[in-house]
């Protein structure tokens, strides 16, 4: 299982863009109204910072996954204990992505279809791609679907541009101030924090020297598009309404009408949403399965799918309401725990320890 630089780029892009675009913008608008795009810009910069941290850390051990090098750095037992928060995150994140993609289909297309049917269908597909294709299969899907996602997003932005009013962006900054803009950016960071999952992926790169620049580019493209998207949402719906909408960018897609006959293009957006959800879900489930196998020293990692997939399904079915979970999940789980501990705290700790212990580990690693 090896992935190329190009594949990594499209994986990063298609996993980060859609959810951030849909949900983070409205969360930022609650705090910063017309300055939500500044929040998203800050979130993008912080996202790039996180990328820098985790790639630099991973590149100290280019042949090892996160589960392996945490043990190399901290020793066998401490290294294993440090993985526990990640284990919780993997399982939980998978279930939320699954739940959310099913919710989206449920809300936009199939209001009478039971939720679990949509979930099981999606899950079967995901299990198939993991079991049959492994990481290489997922990466190839990303390479195929990523460009489509990009084209549809650019097309949506282009078609929405006929009734934009840039006046809605003014006054810039004075109304909200740093405090609210920073607060608004946190939810963006929460979505970009997903990138921590890639610490399990870099070890599979055919040319690991490219990892930093490619991940940076993928994140930068995402961040720029999200900033553009949030500006467009504000220019379409004004400073107040986006904060009250479930997914303002999708609302904007539904609003497209060019010359009275290019309408209802939102169905294209539903398709790329499913593409993104599929790649995200299969990659994250693969990581959860593969990471758990490495963590427990199980040789045949594929067996664990049959354990992980049902757990994911059950957890995904727990929340009752269709639109509330994603926002509450970000507010209650991701911002107070996952971002400070999993995304920043532990990687930083590992990096510091690794730098302090220095060259000897790396040399030993190379000789292995």
């Amino acid at each position: 299982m090896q992935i190329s630089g190009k594949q990594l780029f499209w994986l990063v892009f298609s996993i980060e863009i859609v959810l951030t675009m849909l949900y983070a913008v409205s969360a930022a608008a609650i705090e910063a109204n017309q300055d939500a795009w500044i929040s998203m810009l800050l979130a993008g910069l912080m996202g790039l910072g996180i990328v820098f941290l985790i790639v630099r850390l991973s590149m100290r051990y280019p042949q090892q996954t996160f589960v392996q090098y945490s043990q190399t750095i901290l020793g066998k037992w401490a290294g294993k204990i440090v993985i526990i928060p990640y284990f919780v995150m993997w399982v939980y994140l998978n279930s939320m992505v699954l739940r959310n993609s099913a919710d989206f289909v449920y809300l936009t297309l199939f209001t009478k279809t039971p939720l679990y049917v949509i979930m099981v269908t999606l899950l079967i597909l995901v299990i198939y791609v993991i079991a049959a294709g492994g990481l290489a299969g997922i990466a190839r899907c990303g390479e195929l679907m990523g460009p489509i996602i990009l084209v549809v997003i650019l097309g949506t932005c282009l078609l929405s541009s006929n009734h934009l009013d840039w006046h809605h962006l003014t006054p810039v900054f004075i109304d909200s101030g740093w405090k609210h803009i920073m607060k608004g950016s946190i939810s963006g960071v929460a979505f970009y924090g997903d990138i921590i999952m890639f610490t399990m992926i870099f070890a599979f790169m055919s040319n690991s020297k490219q990892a930093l620049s490619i991940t940076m580019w993928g994140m930068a493209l995402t961040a720029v598009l999200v900033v553009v998207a949030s500006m467009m949402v504000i220019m379409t719906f004004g400073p107040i309404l986006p904060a009250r909408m479930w997914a303002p960018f999708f609302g904007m897609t539904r609003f497209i009408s060019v010359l009275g006959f290019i309408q209802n293009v939102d169905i294209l957006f539903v398709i790329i949403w499913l593409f993104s959800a599929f790649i995200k879900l299969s990659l994250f489930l693969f990581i959860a399965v593969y990471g758990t196998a490495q963590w427990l020293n199980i040789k045949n990692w594929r067996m664990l799918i049959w354990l992980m997939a049902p757990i994911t399904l059950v957890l995904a079915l727990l929340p009752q309401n269709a639109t509330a979970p994603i926002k509450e999940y970000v507010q209650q789980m991701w911002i107070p725990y996952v971002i400070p501990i999993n995304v920043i705290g532990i990687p930083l700790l590992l990096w510091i320890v690794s730098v302090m212990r220095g060259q000897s580990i790396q040399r030993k690693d190379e000789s292995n």
Partner: protein
Amino acid sequence: MSQIKLGWRWMTLIILVLLITGCWDRRELNNQALIFAWGMDLKDDGSYLASAQFPIPRELGDSETAAGKSSFTITGSGNSVYEAAKDLQTKVSRAWFAGHRRVILIGDKLAKKGLSNIIDEYSRNPIVRLRTDILIVKGSTAAELLSLSYPLEQVPANAFFRIHEAAGTTPDLTLLKFLMANASEESCPVLPVITAQFDSNSKLKLWGTAVFNKETKLVNYLTLKKGMIVQWVKGELDGAIRTVKIPSEEGNIVVEINHLSTKIQTSADENDNIRIRVVLGAKGVLRENNTHLDLFQTKNITMVKEYMNNQTSTEVKRVIKEIQAHGTDILGFGVAVHRQHPQQWKELKKEWPQHFQQAKVEVVVKINLEESGMTGPSIGQKKSEIRS
């Protein structure tokens, strides 16, 4: 080994086929009644009367059909929009589908009581698009208007939309603009007004603009002429005509204006006294000269221009005064103050309706008469009557 694998594949395939048939959400077009227009009224007992106009599929597309038979209207009542809609369903043989709804009519009685209780459904339901026209019915009820037939359109629902469109606006942005103004801290929302004319062939007439306060209650009507001035001040008007009265003459002069522009300059002193200067610009083309003036003369043109600008600014001032008296900022003054004095706005916004009422407004109109047509003096006048 390979046989087991093959068996697994077949199993998966069969399960998938069972799952993806999608029977739950099957919606056949010929089992549905499409709603093209929707009406809401307030009944005397305080409940809502919803009415829906359905096109009759068999009659559509047939150009021979006499107008008026191609649609029918059904009403239902209840204490909420959705309840009324469910009551309505009991009278229709097919499941209704609101995804194609382009027009919502609201009776003035309901509008005076306030729209906040019914407006939510129009943006919450995922089936419905935000791109909807919404009109206030003055003088009769929405249900009455929906049951009228309209000679020019196969589906009468389109008549509302197109009458509104012909007046030079983008009708499908109406609901969004209403919601945006209602949510904003500066502005009050407006909606177009339509009335029924039971004695005329056309049956419908675009009447003007309805002004709402911050509680989404209808507080004031503006005629089309006044509504146009509001649009001009907001910078949303494309063109209009002005009739100029020359005091020394008997007839009048008609000028078509286009390339309209608006500039709003605001100032606020330390006692929160607001001064607003509205500069309205336009290019004018003289269309009709019913006076004795010879318009080959520059001095006459200058005179017409001065009278036109003075009369227009007086009229604009009068309209602004009337709106100020109601304390409903539909002119975009609050937006202008917010953008030009963002720091002071933080204080001003707390009592903006009062500040808006007390603001001193100065209006400057600069219409440039660029073209006066192919004739100088009016052709229809005797030579002795022409004044240079």
